[in-house]
């Protein structure tokens, strides 16, 4: 376990920042890119997880377990969000017979 600890210090924290920024941008691009509402929810999960990874990295580099507890809370919120979001998807499929978000464009106004 000590080898892992010493090896992590070889990787600069900037690389974690760049990695999670990359993942967050990919998730945001996916939200804009797709029309399938389930794919949009998946891209949201991707964005959640990039924030989680950065929190865990900061927590490990600062030797403070509060960041990891915060990641745990984000996971709780993500689980609740996915349950509600997928039930909305089921309701949408039942009402408009599709999962295309362009059919709900009247929500814009």
């Amino acid at each position: 376990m000590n080898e892992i600890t010493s090896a992590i210090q070889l990787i600069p924290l900037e690389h974690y920042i760049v990695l999670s920024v990359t993942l967050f941008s990919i998730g945001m691009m996916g939200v804009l890119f797709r029309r399938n509402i389930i794919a949009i929810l998946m891209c949201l999960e991707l964005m959640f997880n990039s924030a989680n990874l950065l929190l865990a990295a900061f927590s490990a580099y600062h030797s403070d377990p509060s960041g990891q507890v915060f990641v745990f809370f984000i996971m709780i919120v993500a689980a609740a969000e996915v349950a509600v979001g997928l039930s909305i998807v089921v309701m949408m499929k039942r009402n408009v017979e599709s999962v295309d978000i362009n059919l709900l464009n009247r929500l814009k106004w």
Partner: protein
Amino acid sequence: MPEAGWDYAKQTTNQKLNQVIMVFLFYFLSAIMVISALLVVFSKSPINNVIYLIICFIAMAGHYILLNAQFLAVVHIIVYTGAIMVLFLFVIMLLNLNKAIIPQKSAVTRIMAVVTGGIFFLVLIAATRQTFVINPRYAFTSEIGLVANVGKTLFHEFLLPFEISSVLFISAMVGAVMFGKRDHAVGDD
């Protein structure tokens, strides 16, 4: 003492080898994560999306193990790949979406989405570039992410939010049931 010196040299060689392996693992897992995230966005079938997202999440659990956050790695595997992605798969199979062909957005919108994502990436990199000067390396202890320490922090400092999150779960469950129920008051079927 030649034996001790030889042992020390061997040990340092082993440590160096381990460090090289760990650094290689970091970049390997990062590459897997980025590639599978791109495939989540660009592949068309919803089942393939879910499978690529599961690959991405497993690579992220590897990242947590590299960061010495064992508790987070286990919870991530259980919650995300075990519960959330299975829920996605259930909904996709329940709604029979695999053969439903959803029309894509127009080419202009898709190109603008990619451009927007790229610009957003550049903006975030530029905004966090100032932090590259600061190098917060404090005393590094390996026991931060173990279950004992995270549990102590969770049940001492964060006990009230932890209890309140159960209320959040109850309300989410009630909301999901309410959404899932057929609306007989308005519907005329």
